């Protein structure tokens, strides 16, 4: 490269740097140009600026527990199946509940039905309110329409008794979980 070329390039670079370094002309507002105010006053003024209010929260309803639904009595009252199968369905359901909750609900038929409807700590609905396996009193019924008898042996074991076709509990045709 020849010397004149180098000088030309340097000259162009110098011009470019000069043009690039020229900032647009600023026009400071009156406050900033007022050199009479001390920094203490400025701080006071800044402090005097009201703080923004927190964003207005839209009131929301507390989160609703999500109810998990299950078809816990699937297969119950199947006309093609042996009635003893119904007892096994409930027994299986109790087994699942015992696994999830570590114990079984204890009480009358209605209380157990309420638990199965979702009134439990995990909000799991094992049956639905319109279930054909519930009567008008909220009891779980067998295929002949009689409420089951749930016998609380312990927190881990409930014996199940259906009144059977004669619809009389403690009679010869009862179906039980012992059978």
């Amino acid at each position, binding site marked *: 490269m020849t010397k004149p070329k180098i000088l030309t390039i340097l000259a162009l670079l110098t011009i470019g740097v000069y043009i690039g370094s020229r900032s647009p002309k600023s026009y400071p507002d009156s406050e900033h140009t007022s050199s009479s105010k001390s920094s203490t006053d400025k701080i006071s003024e800044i402090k005097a600026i009201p703080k923004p209010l927190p964003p207005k929260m839209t009131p929301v309803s507390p989160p609703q527990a999500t109810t998990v639904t299950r078809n816990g009595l699937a297969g119950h009252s199947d006309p093609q199946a042996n009635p003893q199968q119904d007892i096994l369905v409930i027994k299986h359901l109790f087994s699942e509940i015992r696994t999830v909750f570590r114990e079984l609900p204890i009480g009358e038929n209605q209380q157990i039905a309420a638990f199965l409807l979702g009134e439990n700590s995990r909000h799991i609905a094992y049956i639905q309110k319109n279930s054909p396996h519930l009567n008008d009193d909220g009891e779980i019924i067998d295929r002949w329409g009689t409420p089951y008898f749930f016998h609380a042996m312990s*927190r881990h074991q409930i014996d199940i008794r259906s009144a059977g076709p004669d619809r009389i*509990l403690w009679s010869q045709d009862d179906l039980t979980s012992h059978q």
Partner: protein
Amino acid sequence: MNQDPNFNPINRRRFLKLSACAAVGTTSLFDTLLNLRQLNAASAGVLGSNEDYKALVCIFLYGGNDSNNTLIPTNTADYSLYAAGREQLTLPKSELLALASLNTQGRPFGIHPSLTGCRDLFDSGDLAFVANVGTLFAPASLSDFRNKTSAIPSHLFSHSDQQVLWQTSVKEDPAAVRTGWGGRAADLIHSIHNDQSTSMLVSIAGANFFQVGENLLPFHMDAAGARSYEILNGSDQYATTRAESFRQLLERDYAHKMEQTFADISLSSIKNADTFNAAIGDASSFDMLPNTGLGDQLRMVAKLIQSREALGQRRQIFFVATGGYDTHGPQLNQHAGLLSELDGAIKGFHGALDSINALDKVTSFTASDFGRTFDSNGRGSDHGWGGHHMVMGGAVNGQRIYGQFPNITPGSEHDTGRGRWLPTTSVDQYGATIARWFGLSESELPSVFPNIGNFATSNLGFMA
């Protein structure tokens, strides 16, 4: 290197100082233990009189006795409520056995017609009823029940859970605690009164929580005596050699802890069985006791009480039990049979104790899973809560009904639903009154009945 300011190196001087302290501490501990042993031995000698003997007999009615048909108010108003509530479970008023109660302020009570012997004992002052006893951790109202406050036990109306709670009276998960109030009481007094070689806790009805202590375990017998290994039976030369070889195997030292423990327990069991069977060898036959399940068990208890000197026992706790009280189905006949068996056994046992002059030394009491629903399920009754119980013996302030009989009006302040009575007396109060007579001091009661401090009184007054 920076040294941890808390670091305190053991040098020779400090080691000697600590060793000296430890030695002194150990010496004191050994001295105390030796003194306690000497004290126990001395007290055993001083208290060697045959007169210093007390025994408790827990009669557990498995299944939940229908005490609504055991003790019944017979004034017109209450009996009308009773009949209306019980429907087909109603016992005719004319068949009830009237009690000559001294403390019911003119309110008459009757008991089930099967309980003739108990009626006689009540009227003679050797039997008392305690009304509406149940599992409870603090005095409770219906509001407590509905809100499931800490006064209310969990898993009400469940057989197993309530049996365990009746027997342990511990609020925490009973399955984790695993000691019963009989066992805990025995822990406190066994070494003071008894020869240490045999257990003061004897069950004639198998495993139970009631008699399990921190240090003591019950010895299990059956109505025929103490069972031992079949391999030890026989009297010919071969059998004798076999038995001796078996004993030698058990007396060996084993490196494996489980093997050693098994050997120790087996050997202890054999020795205890030999001791107990030898002790009762000359006992009376107590023919006044009926040949029923419960009668046979109480006959064995009577033999053990008669043999107390041979066993070196001055305080004993026995456990007997009978089942079938879970009367959901057709109840009336079944319950009558059950109470008939109970009555015969109680009456016979009273006679047996009387025959060996032990009536004042032995207190028997009933316990059960729970009471039953006042209303009928159509044929029987279902699981309830509070129930009425009997305490028998010469030391009982009998002919009285203790506690508060529930208000049997439907929807009353005691009705948690279907006539499941909210207990007005807790198991702790019931047990503490008995345990106090047995020898526990006021200060010892809370360690045996952890909830007793929540109740107004620990003494219901039915023991002399």
